[in-house]
């Protein structure tokens, strides 16, 4: 147990260091694959080992580790200051300085006391779910990167090859993620948290051009801001509450809202920045400049997941407080507006980015509500989102390599050119919003959870989710439509992507489908026990009737393609209706003025309603207002001691 937790944190770290020395080449590629495989296998092993055993603590506390942690945090802060000075990003420098000050002050305070050595690391069902997500999806993304990055550098001769650093960062990232998930000690958690910020910064800036750097710094800025909030929470515990025991998450959570609400809110704020909620969402959109595997990593299994992970962890504290409501309203607003913005995008990765932001918003909304049903929904959302979203990112990456465009319009009729990738992409998209796939179940659960949210707020949430899911249907369906819109069939490509890429895609597709089929098991064996461990009565969330309903739908969906066999028989094939105009195979027709007109068909983007700039502005304004209210609530709590 102890070994496995440490192994999962340390093994990727070692692998990362190895990457720094290995030269580019097949050997490194193979080692990457092996390391990824080991990480994934380790995750699965840990999962099996702890399955059904409830919560477990591990202490490895001794002064040395704490010192390492302190030094690491110091180094990170200094690095941030240095690099931001170099690029003249003085806001980031300032933030870094604050962070540095906090770290030093914290060390000064802690110096006087002794930290009880009790379970710095821990594992329960929730962390196991996260373990699987990080291990399996993170691992598969590593495998995918091998082929992808080779192609990337063949295409982009102008970008300097930093693949060593790339793989170093990726593995470091995984290590830090495990750290985040397993840390019980908040100070440790903070360190891992900062490492993820830094890794993402460097990965976003991979191309080393101006755009990349700018976006990378935006990410860094918001994340450091979140880091400061996080350290403020720790400072609060140390300085105000004054009981070092509360530096352990389990204690803090057990202490209930009365004690923990302020640090929980601060950490929640940190979670908002990391999970790219409004007003911080722009960093995630900017992160699109990075190579696709990076985006996939940031979006599906790591980084943003760290943000929502921590918020969900603290969800019980938020239950029935205005603080929680404020957080979850930010999430709700983010869900609504990011979904709307996604409609106006034709860049596939941007659509994915906004949909990630939206989905995380929903998770945050659920977590902020904090009831058992809501947490149940939040965890389901995390799972299904991770699987389907990584599948989508990777398939978009593969299409991008073939078509040299990430524009959805350029995917017209993709199904006839790249049938395998397209079908997987379709499954991924369906996984994001259609019954009986997972995301939809989660949404269903969220609706049920919302109804019982704090009294009049319930109505607001219902409206938000009702409108939000309608928006979701729009942009996903039109994307699916593009994929299958065949104007004239082309011959499929012999090789749609590199074997590594195809393997990763098959793997993730299988995962998406399996997660859907086995979701009752996931619910009964993982989420419910976790909820029980939180100590409250768990409502019956899934009746057997619902499961049967879902089962009927799933079976139907699986059986339907069989009908294709019947339908491809005895049909006369005729061209499209073109108002009686004669057309050629490409649907060109002779237009006015003697021109030849090409029949273009593009999707609707309806920018008059769903324009990016306008909506993002609304999102930012509203969320800033809510955060201001949150600040007021906290100040009030701080001064009066009454939990709102």
């Amino acid at each position, binding site marked *: 147990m102890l070994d496995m937790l440490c192994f999962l944190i340390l093994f990727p770290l070692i692998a990362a260091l190895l990457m720094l020395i290995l030269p580019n080449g097949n050997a490194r590629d193979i080692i990457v694959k092996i390391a990824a495989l080991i990480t994934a296998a380790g995750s699965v092993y840990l999962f099996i080992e702890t399955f059904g055993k409830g919560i477990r603590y591990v202490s490895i506390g001794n002064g040395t580790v704490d010192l390492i942690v302190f030094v690491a945090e110091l180094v990170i802060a200094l690095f941030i200051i240095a690099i931001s000075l170099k690029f003249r990003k003085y806001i980031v420098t300032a933030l870094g300085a604050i962070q540095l000050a906090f770290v030093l002050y914290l060390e000064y305070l802690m110096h006087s006391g002794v930290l009880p050595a009790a379970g710095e690391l821990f594992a329960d069902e929730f962390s196991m779910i996260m373990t699987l997500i990080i291990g399996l999806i993170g691992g598969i993304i590593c495998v995918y990167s091998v082929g992808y990055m080779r192609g990337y550098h063949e295409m982009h001769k102008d970008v300097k090859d930093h693949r060593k650093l790339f793989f170093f960062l990726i593995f470091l990232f995984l290590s830090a993620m495990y750290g985040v998930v397993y840390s019980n000690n908040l100070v440790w958690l903070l360190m891992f948290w900062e490492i993820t910020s830094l890794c993402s910064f460097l990965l976003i800036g991979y191309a080393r051009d101006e755009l990349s750097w700018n976006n990378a710094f935006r990410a860094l800025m918001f994340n450091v801001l979140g880091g400061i909030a996080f350290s403020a929470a720790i400072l609060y515990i140390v300085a105000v509450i004054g009981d070092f025991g509360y530096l352990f998450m389990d204690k803090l959570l057990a202490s209930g809202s009365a004690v923990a609400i302020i640090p929980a809110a601060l950490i929640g704020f940190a979670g908002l920045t990391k999970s790219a909620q409004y007003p911080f969402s722009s960093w995630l959109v900017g992160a699109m400049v990075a190579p696709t595997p990076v985006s996939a990593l940031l979006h599906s299994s790591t980084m943003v997941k760290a943000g929502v992970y921590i918020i969900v962890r603290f969800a019980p504290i938020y239950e029935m407080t205005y603080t929680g409501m404020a957080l979850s309203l930010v999430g709700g607003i983010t869900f609504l507006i990011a979904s709307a913005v996604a409609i106006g995008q034709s860049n596939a990765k941007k659509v994915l980015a906004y949909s990630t932001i939206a989905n995380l918003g929903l998770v945050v909304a659920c977590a902020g509500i904090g009831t058992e049903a809501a947490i149940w929904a939040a965890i389901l959302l995390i799972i299904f989102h991770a699987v389907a979203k990584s599948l989508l990112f990777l398939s978009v990456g593969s299409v991008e390599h073939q078509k040299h465009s990430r524009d959805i319009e350029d995917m017209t009729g993709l199904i006839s050119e790249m049938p395998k990738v397209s079908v997987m992409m379709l499954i991924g998209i369906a996984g994001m919003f259609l019954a009986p796939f997972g995301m939809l179940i989660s949404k269903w659960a969220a609706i049920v959870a919302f109804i019982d949210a704090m009294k009049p707020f319930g109505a607001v949430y219902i409206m938000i989710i009702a409108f939000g899911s309608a928006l979701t249907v729009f942009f996903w369906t039109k994307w699916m439509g593009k994929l299958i819109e065949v104007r*004239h069939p082309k011959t499929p490509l012999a090789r749609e992507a590199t074997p590594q890429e195809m393997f990763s895609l098959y793997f993730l597709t299988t995962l998406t489908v399996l997660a859907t089929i086995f979701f009752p098991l996931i619910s009964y064996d993982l989420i419910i026990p976790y909820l029980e461990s939180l100590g409250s009565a768990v409502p019956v969330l899934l009746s057997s009737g619902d499961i049967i309903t879902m089962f009927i739908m799933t079976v139907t969906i699986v059986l339907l393609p069989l009908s294709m066999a019947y339908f491809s*028989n*005895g*049909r*006369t*094939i*005729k*061209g*499209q*209706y*073109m108002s*009686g*105009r*004669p*057309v*050629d*195979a490409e649907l060109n027709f002779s237009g006015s003025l003697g021109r030849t007109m090409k029949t273009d068909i593009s999707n609707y983007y309806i920018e008059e309603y769903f324009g990016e700039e306008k909506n993002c502005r609304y999102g930012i304004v509203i969320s800033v207002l809510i955060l201001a209210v949150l600040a007021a609530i906290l100040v009030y709590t701080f001064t009066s001691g009454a939990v709102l």
Partner: protein
Amino acid sequence: MSGLTKSPWIIHYDASSCNGCDIEVLACLTPLYDVERFGILNTGNPKHADIFVVTGSVNEQNRQVIKNIYDQMPKPNVVIGVGICACSGGVFKECYNVAGGVGQVIPVDVYVPGCSVRPEQIIDGVVKALGILEEKRAAFAAESKKGTDTGANADAKKDGGN
């Protein structure tokens, strides 16, 4: 009784008519004549239509349009030439740009004479066409039964696809 003759949907195309016959075709749909009594709908889409009503004569530009529309109609279907322009080119048959009646381009089943035709004549024409439609349906049903056995439809698939 087949469904076809109880629900013949029409598509109307104005080849190069003078409007006289067109508006009479439209008039058939309106309250006084109301051909929906016979289940007739004006679909405006060849793919939904059973009866192709052409008014006006064929000229260089529209001959392909007529062909295209006819081609996109699923079988069994019938064509009615309405008005003498559609039957023979009418008073314009000697104009340089008029190639003649619709029969120049597609096979016509019923000719409705008149200039302009009267709604009652059009109704009469449709009634005649229904008889022909029923014959064609029977023939089509018999043939497609054979077709599925022998796989004769295979080449139907090939041609016309674009």
